[in-house]
């Protein structure tokens, strides 16, 4: 019999042995962890909607979720979610694209100052174009707007300089940028503030090179201030709400996720201490018969998130010797007001949905 490379491949390399013949909830595409997170590591999260799930579950499972921009203790807990406290590691809202992430870093360190840095809502409130839904009805005064943003940037700098692990979920490739200076907005102007003007804004659909260059630049800059920062990349399995391309949203979504997936692979191989975690594959893989999506074929179910986090904990968490994994998975944060509140954040604030309204 002829020898060939597949003969020495492990079971997980074969569809028949790792997918077709396996219970869906036991499918394990992770195989091995590429870096480790201890319970004391400061773990920061950012990215698109799916990253909110990760943040919530990290807290619920006892990880040291790094929340650099916490709500002040006087703030009523029921207001945390609508003011975007604890949703990500700072109040930056959803960061859908690599361009946004890179520009956030540059803005926080004063290296990029977009010329158009505020909108009004017609009722005297100011809207931050780069986090247009960060709080209900925007900011009441310019003073508050400026003070809050300065504080936000200060917290972002603290976050980047002190985090141990940064989990970033790549969400979209389509975005709108300023024609004047390339400032990238999370939402199309006019959707949640501002007004659309084709002479001031243009549509950009980032390609593999764009995403790769943005992310590698970001990682290199991050490591100039935090050389030990470890990075875990994921691709959001949540499909896009709408496309600005003249084609079916399903086609655009496939393109977008493909670009992000390829870029993530290149980035993870391009720098040490960067791992790709396949949450996209776990949720969208055909093995689950799409049971990890809700009826809208877009929202991810709890079962799907559970599958992702179970494998994440298995491969990436360094457990204390006297704490079996099951107890970590089942742990809640009932004794800590903050983490209890975090666990309560079931109503995810996915501002991308505003496109549909």
């Amino acid at each position, binding site marked *: 019999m002829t020898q060939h490379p597949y003969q020495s491949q492990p079971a997980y390399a074969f569809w028949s042995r790792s997918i077709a013949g396996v219970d869906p909830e036991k499918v394990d595409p992770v195989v091995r962890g590429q870096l480790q997170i201890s319970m004391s590591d400061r773990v920061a999260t950012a990215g698109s909607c799916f990253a909110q799930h990760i943040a919530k579950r990290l807290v619920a499972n006892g990880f*040291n979720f790094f929340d650099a921009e916490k709500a002040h203790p*006087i703030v*009523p807990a029921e207001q945390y979610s609508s003011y975007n406290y604890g949703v990500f590691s700072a109040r930056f809202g959803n960061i859908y694209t690599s361009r946004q992430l890179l520009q956030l870093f540059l803005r926080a360190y004063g290296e990029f100052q977009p010329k158009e840095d505020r909108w009004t809502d017609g009722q005297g409130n100011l809207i931050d174009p780069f986090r247009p839904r960060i709080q*209900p009805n925007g900011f009441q005064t310019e003073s508050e707007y400026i003070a809050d943003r300065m504080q936000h940037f200060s917290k972002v700098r603290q976050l980047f300089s002190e985090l141990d692990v940064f989990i970033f979920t790549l969400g979209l490739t389509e975005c709108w940028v300023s024609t004047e200076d390339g400032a990238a907005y999370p939402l199309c102007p006019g959707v949640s503030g501002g007004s659309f003007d084709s002479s001031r804004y243009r549509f950009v659909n980032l390609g593999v090179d764009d995403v790769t260059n943005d992310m590698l630049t970001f990682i290199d800059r991050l490591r100039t201030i935090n050389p030990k920062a470890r990075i875990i990349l994921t691709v959001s399995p949540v499909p896009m709400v709408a496309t600005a391309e003249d084609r079916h949203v399903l086609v655009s979504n496939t393109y977008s996720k493909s670009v992000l997936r390829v870029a993530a692979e290149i980035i993870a191989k391009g720098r040490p201490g960067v791992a790709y975690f396949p949450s996209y594959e776990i949720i969208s893989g055909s093995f689950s018969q799409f049971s990890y999506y809700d009826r809208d074929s877009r929202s991810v179910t709890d079962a799907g998130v559970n599958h992702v986090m179970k494998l994440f904990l298995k491969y990436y968490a360094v457990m204390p010797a006297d704490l079996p994994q099951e107890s970590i998975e089942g742990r809640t944060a009932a004794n800590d*007001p903050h983490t209890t509140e975090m666990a309560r954040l079931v109503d995810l604030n996915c501002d991308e949905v505003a496109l549909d309204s």
Partner: protein
Amino acid sequence: MAGERGILSVAMQRVAKLREIFASKTKPPPEIPVPLAPSLASVSKVNPPSSSSEIRLAGFGYSHIFSILTASKLLDLEGLGVSVSATLLSQTGLPPIFLPDVAPELKFTPEFCDLLEAAAEGADVVFLCIAGNAHQTLSLVNHPMPFDFVLKERPGLPLNQQSEIVPSRLVAEALINQGGYVGSIRILKAFVKYFVDQEIPNRPIVQCALPPIIPSAAHIHQYPAHFRELIEQYGVTPELIRYKLWKLHSQLVEAECINLGIQYVAVPSSMLDEHEFLVKDAWPQDSVHANERYGIRVLEQLIRLKAPSFSLPDAS
């Protein structure tokens, strides 16, 4: 996380302590005479109003009513055709005020209704001094994690650089979510409902404004009362932050009054200095109230609701 728990725990203990202190502060300071019942309330007369008929004021409230009560006793009102009845709701000797908690509305006991009826009988103006201290809970003593915010009406006021900036709408939410605020507004609503339901025409029902803050930290250190321990531990909150919280609280109470359909009687302009702090002449020998000079000017405003040209002399 342990650090955060610690801060939260300290903050919660502090809020509980402040609530305890404010609960006790509603009891009268020993040096101030306490009206035991409406029948014993001050009735005085001074310079007669333009109308020959007597003007009767009936008031109900907590600690801030002392400045009005003391003012009415200081002035010789006899011959002015003005009588003032001011009932301190936290005094001993009153019958139980409310029936066992009936959410969402408080209801008066029959015994207290009798007292209310007697106290307000023939009154031309009903004034209330309720809901006056919620801002102090957040403001008087520095928070373990100092905070500041931008007041919409005066956005140019400087921010404390050492403080965490909290969105102003969230500071309002924090005030509203305090048990002290919620409880006091429930009480205010109960009084308003009682008097509105009486349907007596041409009888204003008004809520008196919250006295402005005393800006001087030295004064507060001099008269720390129950706050001594916390002030020693955390210090007095900078006056501008206390001012902003007072202003915000005042706006909230005024908005409640508008919703309830009653008038909110503003702070007498002569009692405000150029920064909208309480003028020094009106500082009492404590940290959170106003003295009888302030009470005189409030009394004057209340009388003017019926006799617009009326004026009272200053306290001697």
